[in-house]
């Protein structure tokens, strides 16, 4: 099932990038997409972790929320950069990732890194080490708001 979906996505991607629609080229694209999907299955990347289509419903609300978070923190970092005294307070902290699947933990870790001002520098199991530009950013993460948002996203599967 995931292999079929992966082949479908690859073929759509091929069509979008190609722009040439003759029978020969489209057939070649379809064959390539199927081959890649089969290789993907063989390499075990077409599983719930590498191709997590079961999360699609959650992405409809999670990504807009994440984009807004990114915009807010990017603006905060912008103000710090342009501030004459450069008021940074770099902080390292550890946060717990409450997600059950590896795809969930990876989503949380990547979301932390995507929001400017915080970077996940280490992952071991469910413990993330985070470097924050401002102390407040680290304390926000320790509060666990984003963590529970990602856990809810993961639970929509």
């Amino acid at each position: 099932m995931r292999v079929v979906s992966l082949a479908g996505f690859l073929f759509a991607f091929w069509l979008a990038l190609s722009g040439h629609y003759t029978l020969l080229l489209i057939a070649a694209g379809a064959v390539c997409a199927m081959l890649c999907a089969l290789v993907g299955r063989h390499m075990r990347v077409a599983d719930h972790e590498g191709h997590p289509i079961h999360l699609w419903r959650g992405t409809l609300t999670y990504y807009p929320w994440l984009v807004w978070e990114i915009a807010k923190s990017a603006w905060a970092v912008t103000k710090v950069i342009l501030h004459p005294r450069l008021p940074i307070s770099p902080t390292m902290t550890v946060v717990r990732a409450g997600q059950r699947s590896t795809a969930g933990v990876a989503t949380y870790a990547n979301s932390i890194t995507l929001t400017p001002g915080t970077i996940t520098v280490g992952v071991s199991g469910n413990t993330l080490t985070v470097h924050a530009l401002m102390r407040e950013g680290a304390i926000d993460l320790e509060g666990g708001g984003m963590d529970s948002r990602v856990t809810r996203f993961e639970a929509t599967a």
Partner: protein
Amino acid sequence: MSGLPVIVDAASWLLILLGSFFTVVGGIGLVRMPEFYTRMHAASVTDTLGAGFLVLGLMLQAGFSLVTLKLLFLLALFFFAGPVVTHALAQAALHERIPPLLAEDRRGKAGAGGEPEGS
């Protein structure tokens, strides 16, 4: 731009200028920040808001076409590959024992997801 409604053209240029602004701010941050890890935070302004606004503005210029779709793929690439690269860079720096300049180290105190303490 020929054939582009003035309002779309203006919105597009507004987005492109906003994107340029955040890109330049990221560059200024790179110069002003004191060390490696804090510089990475400044760079992330460039590849989120900077790249985001620029690509949105370019999408309006391209209109409803394959080019717009390709720009969308570009944004998706930033979105998914960006944090992986940033993470790899930061982790490599830690492995090389480049010491982060810290105002506070909460790794010991905070506990895994514990309550923030008022210190």
